């Protein structure tokens, strides 16, 4: 077992983990962040995308021990504490950028990361920027529209919530014994 400290969606978690534990398993099975889903066994689908220290990663392809000392933002940490949706969430909702919704948590997290680097992407830049995320329902048209809408809303100051809470700002602490 290896001791790790993570800040997940603004809350600090100290846990003992087996080194082979994948970050996504740790988030779902230990911390209860079941909003982050697993869609494949091959690191291709991107459904498991979270932000690690502010940048998008596939949490099925990171060991929990590699995330020690870092801040993780999942889909569950994106809305404001009062419940107001993040502009990307709102745009996916309004544009109906989903069918079954399985790819949606990963699509939204990947879009948040993309817009942080490129606040006003073209259609082609959105498609390239989301190439690590697959939608088996193939609802890509509305996904691209939603990302454009979110970009516009964020440019208008539509509540571009900071994508991550710095590790120092941990408001609570939880210990898990194994």
């Amino acid at each position: 077992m290896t001791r790790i400290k993570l800040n997940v969606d603004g809350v600090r978690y100290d846990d003992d983990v087996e080194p082979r534990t994948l970050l996504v398993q740790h988030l779902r099975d230990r911390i209860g962040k079941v909003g982050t889903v697993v869609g494949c066994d091959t690191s291709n689908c991107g459904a498991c995308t979270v932000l690690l220290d502010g940048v998008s990663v596939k949490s099925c392809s990171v060991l929990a021990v590699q995330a020690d000392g870092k801040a993780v933002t999942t889909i569950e940490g994106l809305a404001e504490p009062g419940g107001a949706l993040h502009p990307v969430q709102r745009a996916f909702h309004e544009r109906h950028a989903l069918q079954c919704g399985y790819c949606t948590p990963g699509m939204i997290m990947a879009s948040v990361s993309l817009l942080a680097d490129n606040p006003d992407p073209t259609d082609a830049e959105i498609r390239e920027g989301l190439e690590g995320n697959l939608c088996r329902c193939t609802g890509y048209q509305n996904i691209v529209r939603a990302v454009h809408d979110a970009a516009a809303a964020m440019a208008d100051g539509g509540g571009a919530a900071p994508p991550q809470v710095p590790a120092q700002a941990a408001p609570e602490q939880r210990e898990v014994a194994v």
Partner: protein
Amino acid sequence: MIPVSFDYQRPSTVDEAVQALSAAGDDGKVLAGGQSLIPMLRLRLSAPSVLIDLGALADLRGIREDGDGLLIGAMTRHADVLANPLVRRYVPLLAQATATVADRQVRHLGTLGGSLAHADPAGDLPAVAVALDATMEIAGPDGQRTVPAGDFFVDYLTTALGPADVLLGVRFPSHEGWGTHYEKFQRMAQAWALVGVAATVRRENGTIAEARVALTNMGPVPVRARAVEDALTGAASTADAIAAAAGLAGEGTRPTSDLTASAEYRAHLATVLTGRAVSAAAGVG
């Protein structure tokens, strides 16, 4: 699926990493960004009993000017390479090829050193290292040594790195002012190259004074297309001269046939893509 159990170590110096690897013998494995290794562990194609994570070796992450070129730490992530103005200035070919690697998520974690050490024949960066005559800085049980890229790639997924060696960084000679292009042929987004061509040329008064061309996935290791380079050197920078040189791209290659492409198709692609890559690098057409 999850990996089989292993011991995990995170050394804080290169010496400790080499010692840990020496102690682990054939059962140890370096973990860098994990973007090739973790998928293999998950599919249980690889099952080392000790993983030695280089994540705490901050000295191995960074890009700096070094003599006539750049020294890029092995743990420098693809995303860092892409964002770096020195890379765009001195080795734009590396930036172009890195932009085609995988997707944003993988580029946020995967490292330059990991891509080279992994030595996948379809990986995009080995051909760039070979085309640009990069050199590898390696630390091992007998001290530090330098290996030219041309000698580093030994076979399919096999390099000059021994089991207790750590790749520290890569030196790229400056190609400031050269025209460059990486042409990658892939069937879909996020896919590996069926064939790729890394090309860079120096033009002088309408002729190609020097050319460097290397091919991805035309054999178990990246292939330097010497016949193409020789034909281009001193040639007029015209579509006809480039097409004639590109026709030689198959020489010295050993492409494989697999589910996605036959060897004959790959040989054909190599000539077409070499023509495109060199034309783009030379600004022709």
